[in-house]
């Protein structure tokens, strides 16, 4: 690929001490408090509280069925059987509809990428309303993702998996989302494309956008994340900083049964 290299994202605090419950860097942008969720009778999340600060990448790590995707859907307002609160930039969103949450700054990037087959690549980008002054212009999106410019008149689903992933991320950046909810962005992608996704995540967080990332690919998660919440059976088992996670990776993963 011949895209211009994204600016390397300087991490403002490279020497944070690894602690069991790492201190947040700023006032949190996203605060999820006491979240419990059910599917019918089955409880899939129990009293989960997480925070994401501006410019921070926070992952949810856990086995299949640990409740990671449900948590993202609950934050986005797509899951109904729910307790607990969601606050973004001080705005209470607990009772808000999904479309209001999106306009408040949550950027949904679902695990199937959610690209519309009946819309062209350009239309996929232009569909969501622009909700923030920092929203990327279409020119900036095309500059950053030249392949989307080349394919702009193609149906969205004619793109490769990696290109669809980039389109899904570009779509919420053009919208001006302040906090991206990324569900398994590396899934099914070649290592070189996964690396590129990592570069993109670093570039967008450098601009102050927060990322809440669900990942099965722990290696990838550990290269991009500042902090990790380890989920098991719908609970936060552990909350660790990136450095500590990297140091104790195999022990922690064994603990989670991954």
């Amino acid at each position, binding site marked *: 690929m011949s895209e211009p290299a994204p600016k390397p994202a300087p991490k403002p605090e490279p020497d944070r001490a690894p602690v069991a419950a790492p201190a947040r860097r700023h006032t949190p942008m996203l605060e999820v408090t006491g979240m419990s969720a059910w599917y019918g009778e089955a409880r899939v999340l129990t009293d989960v509280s997480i925070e994401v600060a501006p410019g921070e990448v926070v992952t949810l790590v856990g086995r299949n069925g640990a409740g990671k995707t449900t948590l993202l859907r609950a934050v*986005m307002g*797509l899951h109904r059987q729910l307790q607990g609160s969601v606050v973004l930039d001080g705005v209470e969103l607990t009772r808000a509809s*999904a*479309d209001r949450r*999106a306009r408040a700054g949550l950027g949904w990037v679902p695990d199937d990428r*959610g690209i519309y*087959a009946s819309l062209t690549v350009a239309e996929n980008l*232009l*569909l969501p309303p622009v909700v923030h002054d920092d929203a990327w212009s279409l020119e900036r999106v095309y500059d950053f993702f030249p392949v989307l410019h080349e394919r702009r008149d193609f149906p969205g689903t004619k793109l490769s998996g990696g290109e669809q992933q980039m389109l899904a991320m570009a779509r919420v950046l053009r*919208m001006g989302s302040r906090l991206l909810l990324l569900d398994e962005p590396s899934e099914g992608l070649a290592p070189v494309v996964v690396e590129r996704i990592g570069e993109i995540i670093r570039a967008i967080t450098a601009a102050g956008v927060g990322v809440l990332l669900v990942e099965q690919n722990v290696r990838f998660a550990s290269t991009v994340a500042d902090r990790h919440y380890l989920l098991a059976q719908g609970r936060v088992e552990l909350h660790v900083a990136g450095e500590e996670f990297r140091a104790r990776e195999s022990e922690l993963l064994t603990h989670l049964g991954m």
Partner: protein
Amino acid sequence: MSEFIQYTLQGLAAGGFYALSALGLAVIFGVLGVVNFSHGACYMLGAVISAVLLAELDLGFWPALLIVPVVMFCFGVLMERLLVRWLLALDPLYNFLLTFGLTLVLVEAVKMRYGVSGLPYEVPAGLGGQVTLGSVSLSTYAIFACVFSVVVCVAVGLLITRTRIGMIVRAATEAPERTRALGINVGRWVTPVFGFGIALAGLAGVLAAPTRAITAEMGSNFIIILFAVVVIGGLGSILGAVVAGFLVGLVEAYGIAYAPAYAQIVIFVMMALVVLVRPSGLFGREEIA
């Protein structure tokens, strides 16, 4: 040969009624997930209102062509606001039953007021004659109905493919939940889209009024064929609705001309064949089937 061309034109004119109505059915199904059983009754209302406008207010075909879609749009808005909306969260079957019941109410109401014998209507002045091309003479009105339907279908097609509203309708049709999660208030579009779909059925009714018997029951057979159109075209496919509409109109016209005993069956045989080869219809997407 000249007969064949006449049958073709008749088929395309009837196909235009199907195409317009099926287009309305398709956008309603796409955005609301509602199979509107009352679509045939709305087509009937379109024709009945045209006849009433003529009888009571002396307003002929041309004013009706404008007034009826507006009236039917308002009727659709009321129907969605007062009835359909409350069942949207439930199984789609509930709205199917609701619109089925509404069909019975509308048909019986028209029967009570206007009887069963049919209301008089005329081909509009200037379109009553025949156009002669060589040895073939064709009904001017059939040509008009055909061209008009195609123009409206193309206009709706452009609305859906070239405008922001159309983009939102396509997105909401494909994935309503995801479209909400991308910041679009899909609910805001539900009422106008429903009204628009009903208006298209009403427009088909106006177009049919000069050539068909205007009775309370005229929608009953129509809706059954309309469902065949939608299945052949692919449920939720807008292009499919239009193409299948004209196709069914043609097949029906040839059937009536060359095999009158089998005219009705032919359409459903065609439907069965299409479903055998392509279960999601000619233009349907797999995930919708």
